[in-house]
């Protein structure tokens, strides 16, 4: 039966080639869009590593073009700002950070540890950062005031980084330098589950916290102050907060936004392109489906004689139905096999490394199902039409 179907497809190879090509490209398009969607959904389901409710971010513009340089006065002013925040009863706890959650821009470091190339995002945060954002610790401890006295520098890493660098060994108290150029002695004091600064849809990566001090002129002043406000703090608080900050640092500029709002912006930034792509892909598939209906319909009208002969020789309507759909499945399988063969190369050759292989394979299966479904749906009406062929009519058709 299957061998016979192959033969039937092969006999009409020229016109079938075009249909196969169409199915092949549809599969590629569908795969690309589904992969992106599954990638986002997969990321969304991974732990975020912090809570954003009732946290506001104050981003500080120190009116310099770069944060590579800072003066002792700048460090001092930042400290004054931090102290000013303590006076507000609305603020439960405040912390400084180099980069805030959901903000743009990253500090990425690439370092080599015992021959392994390790890439990670680095953030500098103060002792209260954990309290503000509720970052859960898996192992060890967070930074604290008494760390001032240490002769080495403490760092906290996420679990992924710990596994990438130390494997199954206990990461606590291991030496690990975040920057290749930094000669100081750094030691891991804690491991967090994760910290995904760019939000729920961002990819999974390595993360490292360095300890920032506000009272040391050698420390770069933080570009952001994060505050945890009491639940139910009204939006009007923003104006009072800003005027106070402005009074402490007249020459600087500030921007206050609740993390909830920054999260919305970050979501839009990721989801709008996906929605547009999805819409376009949806319409493309509708177009392909309709086109297939037309082509198959034409095929059936062309093969009336052949179908009539089969009916005359005793084939049931159901047999005809099976034959037409069967041919279509064979055709689709060729196109899809070609596409799958091509796509399997991506994870095998590790061409797009940031997407995990399971995401690839799941998307591939989804895309296969979608395209099979589409082709079969498109084939329903034409194959039904084929079953309506009357043998007598078909045989004297010319």
């Amino acid at each position, binding site marked *: 039966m299957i061998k016979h179907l192959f033969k039937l497809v092969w006999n009409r190879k020229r*016109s079938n080639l*075009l*249909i196969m*090509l*169409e199915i092949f*490209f*549809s599969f590629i*398009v569908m795969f690309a869009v589904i992969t992106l969607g599954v990638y986002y959904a997969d990321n969304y389901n991974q732990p975020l590593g912090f809570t954003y409710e009732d946290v506001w971010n104050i981003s500080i*513009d120190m*009116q*310099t*073009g*770069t944060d*590579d*340089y800072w003066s002792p006065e700048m460090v001092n002013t930042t400290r004054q700002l931090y102290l000013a925040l303590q006076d507000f009863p609305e603020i439960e706890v405040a912390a400084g950070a180099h980069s805030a959650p959901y903000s743009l821009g990253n500090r990425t470091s690439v370092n080599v540890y015992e021959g392994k190339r390790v890439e990670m995002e680095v953030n500098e945060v103060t002792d209260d950062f954990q309290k503000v954002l509720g970052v859960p610790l898996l192992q060890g401890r967070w930074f604290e005031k008494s760390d001032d006295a240490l002769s080495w520098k403490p760092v906290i890493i996420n679990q992924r980084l710990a596994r990438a660098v130390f494997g199954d060994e206990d990461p606590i108290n291991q030496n690990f330098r975040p920057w290749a150029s930094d000669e100081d002695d750094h030691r891991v004091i804690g491991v967090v589950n994760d910290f995904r600064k760019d939000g729920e849809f961002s990819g999974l990566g390595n993360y490292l916290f360095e300890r920032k001090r506000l009272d040391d002129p050698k420390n770069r002043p933080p570009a952001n102050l994060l505050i945890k406000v009491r639940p139910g703090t009204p*939006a*009007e608080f*923003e*104006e009072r907060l*800003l*005027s106070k900050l*402005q009074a402490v640092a*007249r*020459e*600087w*500029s*500030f*921007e*206050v936004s609740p993390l909830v709002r920054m999260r919305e912006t970050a979501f839009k930034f990721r989801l*709008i392109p996906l929605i547009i792509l999805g819409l*376009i892909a949806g*319409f*493309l598939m*509708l*177009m*392909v489906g*309709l*086109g297939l*209906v*037309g*082509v198959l*319909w*034409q*095929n059936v009208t*062309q093969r009336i004689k052949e179908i009539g002969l089969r009916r005359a020789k005793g084939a049931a309507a159901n047999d005809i139905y099976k034959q037409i759909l069967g041919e279509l499945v064979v055709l689709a399988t060729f196109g899809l096999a070609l596409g799958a063969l091509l796509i399997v190369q991506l994870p095998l050759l590790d061409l797009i490394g940031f997407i995990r292989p399971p995401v690839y394979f799941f998307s591939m299966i989804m895309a296969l199902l979608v395209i099979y479904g589409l082709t079969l749906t498109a084939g329903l009406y034409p194959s039904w039409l084929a079953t309506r062929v009357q043998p007598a009519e078909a045989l004297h058709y*010319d």
Partner: protein
Amino acid sequence: MLKNYLKIALLVLQRRKFFTFISLFGISFTLLVLMVATAMFDHEFGPFAPELKTDRMLGIYSVRIENSEKGYARTGASPYWFLQRYVRPLASAQKVSIYSLQRSVNSFKNGVKHELYLKRTDGEFWEILDFKFLEGGPLSAQDEKDGNMVAVINEATRRKLYGGQNAVGKTLDADGQSFRVIGVVENVPILRVTSFADVWVPLSSAKTNSYLHDGAGNFLAIILAKDRADIPRIKEELQGVLPTVQIPSPTEFNRVITAAETLFEAAARGIFANDRDAGDYSKPLFALLLLFMLLFMLLPTINLININVSRIMERASEIGVRKAFGASSWRLIGQFVVENLVLTFIGGAIALVGTMMVLKIITESGLVQYAEFQINYRIFFYGLLVALVFGLLSGVYPAWKMSRLHPVEALRGKSI
């Protein structure tokens, strides 16, 4: 003869309405997506108010200051000293303006917070660009020199802060500073990198004047040429000046790389060279965009070819008759291609109407701040061109196939 082809084409379209519908659906959808994309592209790079002199305008969008021995660099908007000392004096330019990137600032009015984009400019900015004033007038070079706390605002800000009433002479509090409004202009869409802002104030109104000698900064420049012929001269002159630049921290950095370029050239240089050299990469970027367009058209084209091939089979006997009476293959190919072009252009007309509707929806959604997307003649002609290419691509293969039919077999109604 062409008239006959058109007649036949229209008759064929009416014969099998389902086929006509699926062809038109594919064609109009494809052209619609391409035209909407073009409209977006045009609103970013094309000449739109207030940037009407784009054919005579160049800009400094990105400056790389590097240490070529140690390999580190600072890339991005320019520090002020570079533009002031080396770009402003360019002899072949007619006018040069220095302005800052816009920054989001807060303005409180009656306890409500408004987020406004604030841009600092010099006086030349207002001479080069053609802002449309609803009331009042522009910032002047004198305002910049005296450090006057004056501001030009856009229509949207006037509506938000002053309820749409006359705003000139009123006070604007933004970012902890207080300005006097001296003019109101029409909104500029956020896509316009050079001119966009809600509030424009003099460079010298900055909170401190440390920007004058800071090693880094966020400033850009517009260079206006007397006429188009001066454009290459300006580019060359700037490249000639670069080796003589004295960097304030010579031990740290020893080389400046930048170019006087259009926004498109700047985007191309950023993508292909990562701003590491001053070459012109606009052609590769253009080729890349063209490639994307063709890739997108691939699936619709195959789809249309499939449908076309099917449609021809129906007409085998007609083709047989024409061949038997001596029509050459070329003539038949011509006929079918014309028929397909007629179909494509009908689809193009539908797409045009659809594009207008989609652009209206995008405009009203406020997704792109202040943008008012509309069809203009550039987008229209581009759409026409794309429709032509699409019609040819999808028509030639089926036509060639049709022309190879043997007359006797075709008359008997044999399939291809």
